[in-house]
């Protein structure tokens, strides 16, 4: 495919402008995503300030080993995603598919570990509003912590599931030979989304898992 084959939509002067619009449009979308998660982060900050003791105590009920492993798994998936985008920039069809597949595998491992953790919480009666038992003096604010835990990690996991769907769609397109050195915008944009979801987790990990470790 030569450069001349790339067709841009009629409202754009040229392909570069179209690419710039798509790229910046994705960043605007990610800005709205920041605000979407931001409400929960703001609520978390407020309640952690109000109930530091309960948040520290409740945080120690999370599995720090699984949390750390999952952080590493997700960072690893961002690495393979970056390599998928790089392959797309080079127009290498096979490597795009391999790296996208690796990213999906790592994303699935992350969700599997997350599910294991959810199951542990269910066994330990730490599901607010359904089955929650905790040291009585801290029970109510600890339930608030776990509400944030499930809401934040749940919405994050939903983003991962959507991401895996997008990656699958990219693999199909890559298989059909739709991407080239000149045209690989969808791979780049899904890459941005995937890295963004990684960043959310980079903040969730310390805010949820590491609050009260130093207090024993």
């Amino acid at each position, binding site marked *: 495919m030569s*450069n001349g084959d790339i067709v841009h939509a009629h409202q754009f002067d040229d*392909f*570069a402008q179209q*690419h*710039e619009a798509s*790229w*910046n449009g994705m*960043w*605007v979308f*990610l*800005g709205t995503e*920041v*605000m979407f998660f*931001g*409400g929960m*982060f*703001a*609520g978390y*900050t*407020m309640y952690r*300030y*109000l109930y530091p003791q309960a948040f520290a105590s409740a945080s120690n009920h999370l599995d*720090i080993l699984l*949390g*750390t492993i999952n*952080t*590493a798994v997700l*960072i*690893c998936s*961002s*690495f393979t*995603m*970056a*390599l998928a985008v*790089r392959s797309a*920039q*080079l127009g290498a069809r096979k490597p795009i598919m391999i790296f996208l597949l690796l990213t999906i595998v790592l994303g699935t491992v992350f969700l599997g570990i997350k599910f294991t953790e959810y199951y542990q919480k269910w066994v330990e009666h730490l599901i607010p509003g359904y089955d929650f038992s905790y040291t*009585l003096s801290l*029970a*109510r*604010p600890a339930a608030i912590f776990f509400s944030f835990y499930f809401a934040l990690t749940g919405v994050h996991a939903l983003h991962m599931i959507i991401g895996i769907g997008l990656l699958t769609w990219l693999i199909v397109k890559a298989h059909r030979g739709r991407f080239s050195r*000149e045209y690989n915008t969808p791979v780049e944009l899904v*890459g*941005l989304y995937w*890295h*963004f979801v*990684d*960043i959310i987790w*980079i*903040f969730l*990990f*310390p*805010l949820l*898992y*590491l*609050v009260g*470790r*130093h*207090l024993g």
Partner: protein
Amino acid sequence: MKSEHILSVKFYAAIFGILLVLTLSTAGIAFVDLGGAWNAVAAIAIAVGKALLVVLYFMHARYSSRLTWVFAAAGVLWLMILIGGTIDDVLTRESITLPPLS
């Protein structure tokens, strides 16, 4: 044609390595009592550092146009307003008491 920056695999691997080291450090530091709010400060500082590496290099913000920077910075700015505007209210009030459980 669009101008793009193709980074080497080695470079991405180096960023990946730094991110893993920072992950292990933040988990390790969490067990050390730094006193007062310093544990929280350290955890957030490391998270911000990791996020910056991802944004600048994995998301290519470093090689993007100024307009992209504006969009990225806007997200952070509004988040700060959201969290700042919430917490300043809480900090300057009498503490709220919750109704007793059940």
